[in-house]
């Protein structure tokens, strides 16, 4: 049973155009596969050939110029049992080259029929990427002087499993169409055609001259790539594996911690450099807070290259739900590096109730807040280099009197999990110990004439 609703001469194409001929042969090749029409989907691109969908009785999809490959891939991945055929012109292969190349590279099992007539028929015969050398078109009045785009070869080197090129007038075309449709993986058949309205008029092209053009242009007709016999090329994974598992929006239950008393909304800014584990530290404290009944919001500030430059992480913790997740006037600012200090900038607006902890190798900031100078090396000895940020955070929140040492340690012990549990725990304990014991190793000094409480 033919999938076509019209014969060649009743189609919309100009007399002498190759499209009708190729569509009839394509429909016959599909019919030889003996698939029921609902198992076939024709995705047509744009241009004269793009109008072909209306003549087919299978599923049809007519989309945007050059994007037919992408729709076909979406359909194919959802319905791998449906033979998905792309019908595209030379223009579509030009504007959609990236999709063609990457669909071939991914081995998406779509079957691409390219109707290459060397020009844009629908828009008036302008040159296309495949226009042959010296050809005359309205946009190449002195002849085409660019290198023509070799669609079939591009598909081949991109990994297509089956690639062939033929003339629309080649007696072997029906066989090639069928082989292309039956080939596993990504298949492409480039068919050279005549556009009787434009290209033929200016370039005296005939069916016989198509063969000469192929020979002269170094683009031979025939099969360019074929899957080895008996070796079905693995197609791109498409359908969801039938595991019977439905995706779920449930997460792994997270450990709960003991209730952590907290004085109210507190904004914390931890400012350092990439590699100082700033975001990890703030994330860990946030997780502890949330698991222990508090509310938290963390937002980060870092340049586009995450391994270089400043890294700032802001954490808001409150016993009430947090409406504004940003930071207005942090009650605790920890500055671990010059990058961080530069990004945080002026701290003269901080209220005097705020605390600033600053690494001893940095100039103490001018601020009405209380400034503690700390020796990062001493913290590193107690907490390892990677743990300094978290140790400083624990040090800061305990020193500020927002949370009891024991309560914080117990909460962390109950909540922290995963690969970094032990290192995070020991960093946090080191910070707590430094705060509680005022250990000489982490001795705090004062700046700005203010004294530690």
């Amino acid at each position, binding site marked *: 049973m033919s999938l076509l609703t019209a014969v060649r001469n009743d189609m919309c194409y100009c007399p002498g155009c190759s499209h009708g001929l190729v569509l009839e042969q394509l429909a016959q090749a599909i019919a030889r596969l003996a698939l029921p029409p609902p198992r076939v989907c024709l995705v047509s691109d744009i241009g004269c050939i793009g109008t072909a969908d209306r003549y087919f009785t299978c599923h049809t999809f007519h989309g945007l110029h050059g994007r037919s490959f992408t729709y076909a891939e979406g359909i194919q991945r959802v319905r791998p049992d449906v033979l998905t055929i792309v019908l595209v012109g030379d223009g579509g292969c030009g504007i959609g080259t990236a999709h063609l190349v990457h669909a071939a590279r991914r081995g998406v099992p779509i079957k691409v029929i390219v109707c290459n007539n060397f020009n844009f028929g629908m828009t008036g015969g302008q040159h296309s990427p495949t226009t042959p050398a010296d050809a005359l078109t309205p946009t190449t009045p002195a002849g085409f002087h660019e290198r023509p785009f070799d669609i079939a070869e591009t598909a081949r080197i991109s990994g297509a499993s089956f690639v062939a090129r033929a003339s629309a007038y080649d007696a072997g075309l029906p066989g090639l169409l069928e082989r292309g449709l039956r080939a596993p993986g990504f298949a492409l058949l480039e068919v050279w055609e005549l556009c009787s309205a434009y290209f033929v008029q200016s370039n005296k092209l005939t069916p016989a001259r198509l063969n000469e053009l192929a020979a002269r242009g170094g683009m031979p007709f025939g099969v360019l790539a074929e899957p080895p016999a008996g070796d079905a090329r693995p197609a791109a994974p498409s359908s969801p594996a039938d595991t019977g598992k439905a995706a779920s*929006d449930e*997460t792994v239950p997270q450990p709960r911690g003991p209730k952590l008393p907290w004085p109210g909304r507190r904004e914390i800014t931890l400012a350092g450099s990439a590699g100082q584990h700033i975001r990890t530290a703030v994330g860990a404290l946030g997780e502890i807070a949330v698991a222990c009944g508090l509310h938290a919001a963390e937002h980060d500030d870092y340049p586009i290259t995450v391994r270089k430059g400043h890294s700032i992480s802001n954490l808001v913790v409150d016993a009430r739900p947090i409406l504004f997740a940003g930071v207005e006037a942090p009650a605790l600012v920890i500055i671990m590096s010059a990058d961080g200090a530069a990004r945080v900038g002026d701290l003269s607006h901080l209220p005097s109730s705020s605390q600033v902890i600053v690494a001893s190798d940095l100039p103490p900031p001018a601020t009405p807040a209380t400034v503690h100078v700390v020796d990062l090396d001493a913290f590193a000895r107690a907490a390892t280099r990677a743990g300094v940020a978290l140790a400083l955070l624990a040090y800061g929140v305990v020193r500020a009197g927002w949370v009891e040492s024991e309560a914080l340690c117990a909460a962390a012990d109950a909540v922290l999990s995963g690969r970094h549990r032990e290192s995070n725990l020991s960093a946090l304990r080191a910070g707590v110990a430094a705060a509680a014991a005022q250990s000489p190793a982490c001795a705090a000094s004062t700046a700005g004439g203010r004294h530690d409480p």
Partner: protein
Amino acid sequence: MREFITGNQAAVRGAIRAGCDYFAGYPITPASSILTEFVREFSNGSGIAVQTEDEIAAIGQCIGAAMAGARALTATSGPGMSLYSENIGLAQMGEVPLVIIDCQRLPPATGGATATGEGDVVFARHVTAGGFPLPVLAASDAASVYRLTYRAFDIAERLRTPVIVLSSKDIALTRQTVNLDLVELAPLTARRRHAGERTFRPYAVDRPADVPAFEPIGGATRVRFTGSIHDEDGLLTIDRARIARKLTHLREKVVANAALIEDVDADLDEKADTLIVSYGTADGAARDAVRRLRAAGEHISHLTLYSLWPIPEKALAAAAGGRMRRVIVPELNIGLYADELRRVVRGAAVESVVRYDGGLISPQALIEHFRDRNAEAVR
């Protein structure tokens, strides 16, 4: 269960809760973690997640997948929205149920990848040629991104249209405390399928505001899909009556169903003569400012917009009518939505509070603006 998750994680959870089983995307800050989360979520075979060669392929695959019956989602940022433009038009014309998340960043162009900005609020509505209405929702935090992504799927299915959910860098990447179990979600409406002996006409509707029945490509019923102007059979048409019928339908199905899309939260004080209208990241600051002002004895009303398009005119009229003198609109752009509100708010002065340097509008800034009774409306 109380969790500490980003807006992007919440978006993925909301999508999966709504039955999303196809995701295609191209990496872009601050939307990338939606892609990586989906790859992880679907690694058990419960759905398909694809990293494509570009944004055009991402939305193209989603359109193909949706028409084959998947519940499809794609996510990007402003630059990617620009590349989605033509395909969003295709999804409108072809009546594709499709959800798009735009994690906005500082615009225009490449702008600031890691800087915040919410400048796509008008662009989202007019992202494609033709001006046909497009539902646009706007999240303000992780919990609302979860709820709105879920709702977007319902709207997309019921109206067979692309639906855009706006997020932004400071929602997408900010980790917040949420309890998704407590987020109220209405049950999803089942897809209207073709029934009866009659031949399936893929775009047939009885009245302009009706929505055509959906049959998937690959199913037993033959489907014709096209982005060209078409009749109810999905065949290209040059018949003026059919063209008018189709395009009137594209407008009417959204306009007549505006109530289905409208999503606001009104927190009104009868004695107030000032209303804050907020959406997106500025909404949290507005809530905080309102709480503090009321604690100080002030009267102020607040309207949160979770749907921006169609403009929730009913809710605005109810909140901004009567004795209201001032409508304050904080935005992380040059005052785009305030301009739109000036067309619909009568009687009260619409005052813009804007910030577009990559930082957030603080509650304090809003309080100061409120207190400055003589504040001249910015613009």
